[in-house]
Structures are given as C-alpha cells and as structure tokens.
C-alpha cells in the first residue's frame, strides 16, 4: 500500500479504529475502573464492541446524517457509541451531563437528535423530561441498567441489548454497515460539539473528519505521542478537548484511554493509572497545589522544613533542569536528592510521576502554580485553542515554556493579529460551520478561512510567542479613553489562592471596581488556623478579617497593574466580596466555569451601583437554584471597601 493510499484509507475515525485493530490488536485501548479493578479492552475488542453497536444501531433504524446525543460521564462504551454512530453515518453530539434540563432541551431541539444515549438513569430521566418539549427523540439507549427495569421500554433499550441484537443481525446488516462506513471521507462530519458560549445560546460546531484527524496527526507529532502513552479521560465528553485527546489523538497514536470509576475517585484513579499524557484546566492544577500545601501544613516541623528547603531549591533550578539549561553540578546533585526525598514521592502521590507531556489551557494559570509543577520536573505546558479550531491554535514546544505566553502557532496553523488586536487563525482544523446558524458562521469565519478568536493578544518580540490579554470584546475603553482589560486584572487577582473568582467592572467608567469570590477551601483553612468561626460561605465572605486580607491582595494587584503603562488605569478602586459563589446552575458561569460577565453585571446591578456611589454596604436579595432544581432567595448585606491605588503612574500615562 502506498502512503497516499494508506492516507486515503484513514479518512474517518472508524477507519482509524480498523487500522488500530489490525496494527495494535492486542494492545490495550480502553480501561475503566469498574467493580474494583481496571477492566481492559484491546483495540481488537474495542473494534468488536463498536461494530456490534453499529449493527445494533442499524437494527434500530439509525439513518445517515441522524444526530445522536450522547450524555454521560466518560466511559468506554460511550466513546464506542460515538464511533458506532459515525460508522453508520450518523453524527454524534456529546452533551454536558451536568447540564440542566432547559439547556439540554435547547441542544436536543437544535440538533434534532433522533437518538439519545444516556449513561444512567439520571440522564434518562432528564431526557424523558425534555421529551415533553422536544419531539425529535425516538429512541433512548442507556448504558447502566440500574433502576431502569420499571421504565416503559417501548422506545428504550439497554445498550448491551442493542449490541446483542446487532450481533444477531450481523448477516442482515453487515453489507449496509460496510457501505455506510466506506462512504465516510475527510469531509464527512465527524462530530458536533456545542460551545458553551459566554453569551447567548450554545452554538453547534460541526467538525469534519479532516478537522479531527489532521489536528490529531499534527499534535501527536508535535509532542511525539505514541501507542505507549496513557491518558485519563475525566473531562466532560462534550468538551472538544476531550474529543481530541481521548478520541482523535488516541485513535491516531493508538494510546490507551483510561476512564475513572466515578467523579469522587478521580484523584485515586489518577494515581493508580499514572498517565503519561495529561490535560487539566488551571483550576485542577490549582486545587491540587492547594491540597498539597494544606496537607503539608500538618506535617511535623522537620519534615516541613525539609519540604520547604527542597521546594525552594526546585523553584530555583527545577525549571531550568527540565528545559535542559545548564545548571551547576552542586545544584543538580541537590535537585537529585530532592527528587528522591520530595519531588519523586510528591509526584507519585499525586499520580503525576509518569507524565511526559501535560497541558493546561482555557484560562490563564497563575505563574506560581505553573512553575510549581514545572519545578517538580513535570513537563506542564500551555496551549491556546478553541472548539472552532479543533482545539489547537498555539502551543508551547518543549524547552520554550513560560507561564505568561501560550506558545507558538501549532503545526499547520497560521495566526495573525488584526488591527483591533484580535487574534485570527487558519488551519486544517478549522470547523466546517455552526450547525443551522449561517450568520454566526459567516461572522466568525471569513471566505479565506480565517477565524476570529474573539480574544485580543499580541506576539511577543523576539520569541514569537503569543500572549493573550483578554476577550476582544471585553477589552474596552474607560471614560478617559484608556484601555480596560478586565480579564487581565481578574487573572492577577485569581492567582492568589484565597481568591476563587473575580469580576472587574469599569468599561466606560472613570475607575474600576471588582467583585471577589473567596476560595472556601483556602480561606476556610486560614480561618481555622486563625480561630475564626464561620458556618457558611456567606458568613466567611463577610468577615472583616477576610475583607482585610482580600484588600491586601487587591492592593498588591493594583501595584502590579500600575507597572504596565497601557493598563494602569485598570486598578481597582473599590471592591466587595460576593455573598454567594458564582455558579453555573444560576447562569452566572458557563459549564466550563467561565464567568458570564454581562449576566453577573445585570444580576448584581445594585451592588455595582453601590460600589460606584461609595456606599458602605448594600442590602441585596439574590435568586439561587439548588441542586435539585428548586429556587430560593439569598439575602445579604454586602460590605464594600476602598482599595489603595497607585495614582502617580495613572496620571503620568494619562498625560502622555
């Protein structure tokens, strides 16, 4: 077979699966912790499972071009159902499993799914609830049989029954399956994923086989991923990253995808598997570091001293050693000692020992957090990406890793910066279209294939690394015309472990103010150590000493912001600590935990007004929804505080 022919044959995910089953048939493709051990499937077994599922789908009458909604936590069978759907020419649409019914209804309605594949009873219930409004769903399939016996199975099937039916009807459906699978090419749709969208309704991003496979190939080569790698699939299946890592790259490179037992055992499962390739949003790394520090608090004094000493040394030389920069022999020796006493065991208990490549993305990561992991010898890097790009836009090559950039353009990606400062890119990974939304498609992707990221950024002189400042539309002007980049300031605030979220306002105003969410774990711990009693988030958030502490943080940030001549107008003059945690269930954040700035501004307009008119405190009532869907009102009197700003700089810049 010539390379071209081979290439031609590998134009769809099912084709990749077929290749893997013949090339790496006996290598482990999937593992899932279930019933106490890691159940494993080889590529060959996985291919069999997918095939029987696809045959079963045919038996159920799944047609070409049908949309198949997939809802549940990361489980091998759900990944297989995606490939099975692709095999019969249908389009898998992964949904966020923690989405509330309304959101789910919108997506199901929008994509017109005929089939819904659910992880368990909980998801089935949601779909049934939605079915009252959305008429398109004809069949519900479920994976976990638990509690499903009582349901009306007129239009409902257990996934394994579907598979057995497929196996039974093999001879009947085989030719049809082959025909449909063979018909798949580079331009047929691989998957449709809904972007959370910081504003408005989610948009269905249509990604073709070309998008996925080209991206997977390029990124695998970039980081030299091979069939020997291990990955832990724990991020939502509806997120493009999981699709690229656990499907695209896994199928391309042939590495093993490991699914944790459930959300509560994620950390111990991570430790057991010890992945070699790992992705986590900054929040996860941050939580992990916070836990490390909290757990070390209880250590005996001598151990604590040892830990601090070696961590200090790691901060000094660890990053350089990882980057292969020259380090003195003595330092190297001491680092080796530290590796034995501290770094090695630490990485081991966190489950990060075997990591070759780790990425973080999605938002800015605190430099201290980033450097902490790098100094331990974990090759943590940053990438910049989007659903519309099949993830990769820029990423950091080994040896050129820094916390404040997002790296150089990924292989095959072109990046340009518009006059407005907005970042544009063009690549084989660029999405086909927004499903049933030509206007948005047109406004995002121009005729030449350039896609607007919506982020403002610039290429650093000399290194060619991209730096992202903020959302392009969020970068505004203040009343005096100086630049307003809230995200920039917010990120600086969020680098403090005590601050979980921050929202800065100031567009069109003469000065900036901020909402702060404290980190309950970190501040709670601090409170415990300082004998501050509290019974709730709200009480802790309103405590004067907490406010004092946050004020110090804000002032520190102000001083740092003042350093940057372009942005020194963004210093925070007044702030408050919000009485509730911003929550996706209340619509204040996206499911990927990005703050929805406008909604927050609207919801807490009274508080913003208070901040600007100089009130000491403001009484407010907020609607909240509980886990079970009930709604309630939260009443609070929120304290407001002034923060010191560094005036000299501002004035000087203004004068220029």
């Amino acid at each position, binding site marked *: 077979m010539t390379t071209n022919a081979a290439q031609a044959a590998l134009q769809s995910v099912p084709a990749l699966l077929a290749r893997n089953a013949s090339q790496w048939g006996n290598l482990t493709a999937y*593992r899932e912790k279930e019933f*106490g*051990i*890691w*159940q*494993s499937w080889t590529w060959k077994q996985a291919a069999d499972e997918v095939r029987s599922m696809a045959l079963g789908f045919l038996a159920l009458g799944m047609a070409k071009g049908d949309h198949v909604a997939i809802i549940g936590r990361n489980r091998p069978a759900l990944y297989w159902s995606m490939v099975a759907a692709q095999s019969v020419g249908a389009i898998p649409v992964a949904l966020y499993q923690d989405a509330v019914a309304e959101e789910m209804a919108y997506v199901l309605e929008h994509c017109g799914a005929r089939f819904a594949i659910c992880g368990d009873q909980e998801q089935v219930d949601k779909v049934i609830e939605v079915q009252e409004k959305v008429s398109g769903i004809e069949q519900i399939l479920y994976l976990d049989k638990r509690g499903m016996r009582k349901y009306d199975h007129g239009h409902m099937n257990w996934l394994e029954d579907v598979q057995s039916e497929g196996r039974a009807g093999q001879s009947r459906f085989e030719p049809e399956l082959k025909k449909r699978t063979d018909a798949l090419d580079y331009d047929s749709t691989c998957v449709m994923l809904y972007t959370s969208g910081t504003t408005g309704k989610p948009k269905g991003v249509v990604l073709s086989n070309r998008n996925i496979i080209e991206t997977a190939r390029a990124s695998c080569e970039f980081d030299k991923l091979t069939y020997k790698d*291990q990955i832990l699939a724990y991020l939502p299946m509806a997120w493009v990253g999981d699709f690229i890592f656990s499907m695209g790259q896994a199928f391309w490179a042939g590495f093993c995808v490991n699914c944790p037992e459930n959300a509560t055992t994620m950390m111990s499962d991570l*430790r*057991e*598997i*010890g992945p070699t390739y790992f992705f986590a949003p900054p929040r996860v790394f941050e939580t992990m570091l916070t836990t*490390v520090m909290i*757990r*070390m608090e*209880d*250590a*005996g004094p001598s*151990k604590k001293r*040892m*830990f601090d000493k070696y961590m200090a040394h790691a901060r000094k030389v660890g990053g350089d050693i990882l980057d292969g920069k020259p380090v003195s022999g003595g330092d190297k020796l001491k680092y080796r000692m530290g590796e*034995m*006493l*501290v770094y*090695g*065991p*630490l*990485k*081991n*208990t966190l*489950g*990060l*020992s*075997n990591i070759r490549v780790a990425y973080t993305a999605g938002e800015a990561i605190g430099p201290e957090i980033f450097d902490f992991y790098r100094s331990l010898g974990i090759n943590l890097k940053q990438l910049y990406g989007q659903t519309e790009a099949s993830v990769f836009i820029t990423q950091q090559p080994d040896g050129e890793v820094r916390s404040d950039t997002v790296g150089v353009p990924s292989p095959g990606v072109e990046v340009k910066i518009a006059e407005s400062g907005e970042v544009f890119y063009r690549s084989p990974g660029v999405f086909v279209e927004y499903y049933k939304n030509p206007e948005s498609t047109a406004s995002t992707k121009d005729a030449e294939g350039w896609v607007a990221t919506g982020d403002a950024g610039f290429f650093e002189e000399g290194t060619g690394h991209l730096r992202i400042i903020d959302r392009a539309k969020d970068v505004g002007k203040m009343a005096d015309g100086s630049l307003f980049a809230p995200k920039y300031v917010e990120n600086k605030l969020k680098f403090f472990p005590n601050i979980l979220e921050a929202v800065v306002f100031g567009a069109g105003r003469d000065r900036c103010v901020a909402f702060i969410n404290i980190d309950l774990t970190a501040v709670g711990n601090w409170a415990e150590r300082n004998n501050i009693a509290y019974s709730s988030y709200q009480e802790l958030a309103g405590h004067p000493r907490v406010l004092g502490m946050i004020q110090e943080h804000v002032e520190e940030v102000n001083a740092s912001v003042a350093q940057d001549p372009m942005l020194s107008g963004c210093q925070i003059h007044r702030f408050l600590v919000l009485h509730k945690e911003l929550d996706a269930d209340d619509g204040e954040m996206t499911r990927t935990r990005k703050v929805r700035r406008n909604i927050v501004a609207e919801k807490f307009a009274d508080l913003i007004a208070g901040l600007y008119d100089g009130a000491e405190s403001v009484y407010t009532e907020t609607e909240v929804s509980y886990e079970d869907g009930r709604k309630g009102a939260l009443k609070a009197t929120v304290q407001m505080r002034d923060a010191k700003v560094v005036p000299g700089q501002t004035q000087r810049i203004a004068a220029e």
Partner: protein
Amino acid sequence: MLYREAGDFKTSYASDNQTFPIRFDRAAYWVAIAAAFLVVPMVLGDYWANSIVIPFLIYVIAALGLNILIGYTGLLSLGTAAFMAVGAYATFKLTTAFPGMPIYIVFLLSGLVTSAVGVLFGLPSLKIKGFYLAVATLAAQFFLIWLFTRVEWFYNYSPTGQISMPERSMFGVIITGASASSTAVYFTCLIFTVAMAWLARNLTRGTMGRTWMAIRDMDIAAEIIGVNPLIAKLSSFAVSSFFVGVAGALTFGVYLGAAEAGEAFSINKSFLVLFMVIIGGLGSILGSFLGAAFLVVLPVLLKLMLVDGFGWPADLARHLEVMIIGALIIVVLIVEPHGMAALWRTIKEKLRLWPFPH
C-alpha cells in the same frame, strides 16, 4: 518515600488480591527470600545459627499457629508448649517406630497428630470462650506434660525419661542427630517456615480465614451469614495445632536433639509464644515473624550487652529480661494493641503518603 505506586494498577481480581499488591513490597519479598536461601547460608556461623536464626525460624511457625487461633479466631490458648510437646513426642515415636520414614514426612505427620489432639482440647471452645477457654487449654498444658513425663511408653522406657532424636537424613544429607550440620538444620527450618507461612497466608486470605475472623469479631453475626461455629472453631484448632506441632517436632528433631517434656515444653514456653504473637501483632502473618524475631533476639542482645559487655551476673540479666518483656507486653497493648505489625503498617502508610503526613 520509597514507594512509587503511580501506574501500578490492577486489571484482575487475582492481582488485586495477591499477597503483596504493591510492586515495591513484592520486590522486597523476593529479595528477602533470595537472601534467606542464597546469602544467609554462606555467612551463617554455628553460634548465630543456634542462638538466633534456627530458634527464630521455629518460633515463627509456632507463633503462626498460635496467631491463627488467637489473632484470627479470637480463641485464647495457654497450652502452646504442650502442643509443641505433642509434636515432639510424635516425632520421637514415629521415627523410632518407623526408622525408614523420610524425616520431613515424620515432621508433617507429627503436625497432624498434634492437630488431632488440638481438636480434642478445642472441643470445649464450642461452649466457652475467653478466659474460660484459657483454663481449658491450661488443662491441656498440665495434663499432656504430665502424661509425657509419667507414661513411659512415650519416651520408650528410657531410664532418663528423656527423648533423644536419632540420626536421620534426607536426600543424603544428615538432618537430625548430633552430626547434622547447622546448614542442613537451617535449610530444613527455612523450608518449613516459608512453606508454613505460605500455607498460613493462603488459609487466612480466603473463605476459611474470613470464617475465623467472623467468629473472632462477632460470633452472632458470623452465624447469621451461615458460619457453623463448630466447624469454624475446630478447624482453627486443627490448623493452629498443626503449625504448633510442626514447630514442636522441629524444636525436638533438629534444634534440641533431646528433650524432656517438663523442661523443654513448660508453661513458660507457652507464654513466650503468646508474647511473640501479642508483641508481633494479633491477626498478622508478618507479626508472627516480627514477634518471634524480637523475642528471640532480645535475650541474646541483653546477654551480649549486660553479661558479656558489663559483666553482670547471668541471672540478673535474665530477671531484667523477664521484667522488660512484661513491661513491653503492657506497653504494646496500650500503645498499639495490634503489635509491631500494626506499627509497621503505620510506617508503611506514612512512606506511601510521603511527603504528606496523612
């Protein structure tokens, strides 16, 4: 600190359920076995063999046996030495009656004989427990020893009342008798100890072990899940006595060579083994090793230090030893009722979590 467990995952119940599920422990175990079989015999001198290593190995077997009874089944016995005596006398009678019988088989048969006697004296355990049972086992201790010293048939009418082990060999190597080399004795004891520990582990990890532990932890609940208390308790007595009997057989056959029941298997020996089990750790195989090692090494160490080092009179050192052992028992029960094995578990847990304190 030493443990590197990331990536050490289990894909089958057999591997999850193995004796040393952690890679590092498994390696350490094989290293220890290799050292015991390959390195120790090269460096072992007669003094160390006779004063520490061989008694240690034999006591491990006895402690394992008693631990099955006390630690796993919760049945207290103070008659260990008597059952050891049964093993010893069975060996003597068997090997003198059937001189051609392979000596290892003799040892095993002696274990079986002890097993039968153990079941007999275990019968009261069906009705009684705790101290009451301890009294019943004391009856075994005194009655059996009396039997062995008074009934001449047991010592083949020897005028001294002693039994002495004739020379026997296996595979052409002299194992018993005065001319047996300490290496041969060492290997005999090592093979038996390793095999018995393996047996003990197997029996305690599966249904039988769980049956015993169920009886130990809550006999009512054990019955409700279908445990027949009669079989559970008697099987524990049988297995325990088998171990103790083999230990007795080895004590007499390869270690002492000659014995008199009242002296070699007095109640003090019962207590010694009991202490090994308590200090080592109730309900732990490893504990039986640790406890035996500790109580075998302690007197030697004290003697080396006090008598040979400081020139103390030997009896003073011995009294101090008795005092220390007594105090240790109390301290162990207060600080860690599950003994050195539990202490080791805690240390291991710390090492696994290192650098975190918990």
